């Protein structure tokens, strides 16, 4: 029987081969599950989302009981991390919601229109530090618990021979501003004060790049998420997307690649219209990870010879579908998007009400 170390090497090789657009011995499967894993092993969401060490144990227990995964996207979970990406408050189970309900981002206008000027004048890190303290209830101190627990979570995953694939997240100024301003206000800003928004983005960008580089150096992960949710093509006219979205992803992705880390474009919602532009990103170095809304078959057609694709069993299929449906969909992905340059996963995240037998069917489908 292979040791954990041997399994780790075998699985890492499988994933890296796929990312480099090669054909591994079989398609790797690298799921992400947080609320699902908690429900699956019977831990309350209120505990799961606030105790990072517990979340790591739960995630590992859940996935190892469902089959043989090559890696997991996140090694642990901490609900307050969402606030650092969205610049928004949250509704948290056990605090604002019943103990076993799913956390949600509370999208209100927490960042004011004047804050663009503050960012332009004082810089982004300085602004964020104060924003976290004043408006997000000392968020900087809160996330320390997660930061301190992360290396332990990564090691516990590796010790089982499982790849802690992308344990951290970075994103572009658009996403943070959009979350902070609220989507409705932010999109109006893009029409009414476009130059000011861009000036603030251009001040924030070098600092975000430097922060991301430091993160890569400290953590030495195999990959990190470069996230996109509200920057999706379906929400923006091409004129706005080309100005406020694409150039920033290009810069961030390049910085991550320069650090020797794989950027996983964790792109929620529909990006089909602009897939062509993603060919401008470094070849064979990135992973495109749509959530079930982007046409993944179109992605294969346009990006297949340029970028590894990961996905995309839809959340609704995992919760409402049957194991047979899941198996058939996964085989279709493996045979048509793979077998080269493809990693099997759910789209976005496995939902809390996914049926365990459906998740199991997804994990097992890579074996044929």
């Amino acid at each position, binding site marked *: 029987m292979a040791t954990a170390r041997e399994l780790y090497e075998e699985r890492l090789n499988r994933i890296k081969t796929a990312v480099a657009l090669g054909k591994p011995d079989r398609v790797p499967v690298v799921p992400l599950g947080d609320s699902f894993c908690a429900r699956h092993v019977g831990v309350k969401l209120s505990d799961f989302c606030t105790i990072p060490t517990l979340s790591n144990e739960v995630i590992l227990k859940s996935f190892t009981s469902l089959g043989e995964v090559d890696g997991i996207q996140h090694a642990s979970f901490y609900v307050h991390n969402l606030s650092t990406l969205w610049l928004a408050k949250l*509704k948290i189970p056990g605090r604002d919601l019943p103990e076993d*309900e*799913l956390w*949600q981002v*509370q*999208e209100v206008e927490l960042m004011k229109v004047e804050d663009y000027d503050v960012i332009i004048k004082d810089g982004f890190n300085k602004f964020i530090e104060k924003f976290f303290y004043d408006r997000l209830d000392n968020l900087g101190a809160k996330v320390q618990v997660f930061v301190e627990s992360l290396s332990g979570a990564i090691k516990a995953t590796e010790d089982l021979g499982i790849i802690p694939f992308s344990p951290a997240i970075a994103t572009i100024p658009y996403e943070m501003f959009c979350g902070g301003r609220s*989507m*409705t206000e932010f*999109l*109006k800003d*893009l*029409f*009414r004060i476009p130059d000011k928004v861009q000036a603030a983005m251009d001040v924030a960008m070098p600092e975000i790049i430097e922060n991301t580089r430091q993160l890569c150096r400290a953590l030495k992960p195999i990959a990190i998420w470069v996230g996109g949710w509200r920057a999706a093509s*379906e*929400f*923006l*006219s091409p004129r*706005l997307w080309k100005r406020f979205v694409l150039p920033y992803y290009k810069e961030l992705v390049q910085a991550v690649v320069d650090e020797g880390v794989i950027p996983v474009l964790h792109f929620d*919602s529909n990006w089909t*219209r602009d897939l062509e532009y993603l060919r401008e990103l470094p070849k064979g170095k990135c992973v495109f990870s749509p959530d079930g*809304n982007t046409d993944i078959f179109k992605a294969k057609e346009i990006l297949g010879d340029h970028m590894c694709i990961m996905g995309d069993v*839809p*959340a*609704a299929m995992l*919760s*409402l*579908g049957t194991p047979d449906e899941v198996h058939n969909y996964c085989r279709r992905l493996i045979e048509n998007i793979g077998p080269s340059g493809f990693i099997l996963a759910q789209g976005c995240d496995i*939902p*809390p*009400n996914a049926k365990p037998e459906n998740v199991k069917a997804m994990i097992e489908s890579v074996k044929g």
Partner: protein
Amino acid sequence: MGESLTTYMGDLMEEEVYSEVRRQLDEGVPPEKIFGELQKGMEIVGERYQAQEYYLSELIMAADIFKKAAEPLQEKLKGSTGETVGTMVLGTVAGDIHDIGKNIVALVFSSNGFNVIDLGVDVPVQKFVDAVKEHKPQIVGLSCLLTTSFDSLKATVEALEQAGLRDGVKVLIGGGPVDEATCKYVRADAYCVDAPAGVDIAKKMLGVA
């Protein structure tokens, strides 16, 4: 000159829309007529959205311009028996606090002549039932962004059935993860891919398309 207001609205020329509304009001043009021109402009916006010339960004901007432009008309429109296409009771279902999609649906339906009763987000099942009894809508619009809210969707439809109100209304559902399978699961009448598509479906159902 009415045509230019419609064009300005359709082209999202914000300042021009506001000044044209003011000018027409000053000239004594009936507010119903001005409002009608704005609505025609919103129809253009809806058409361009469906033709993928406009996106959510333009839809949100258009809705905001429409709302602001119509403000000085509201007082004068009160009391006039403005004709509506129909009434819609709308809300994001229990357990779900997402409001962007729901707000856009409210604005797009309103600008297309529907009287929209917006119940907000995280709406308890009973509140939908009470609102249907009170307002007697033709359409009930249910929104959600979480797959975990599918059961809230289902519970809301079931409560309407149990209250004997289901046959009198058409239930439209929409939101990120919602699809045809969800529609079947919760026993809604139709699922709408976006707000303008919802308007088309609703109008067809009411025979006013």
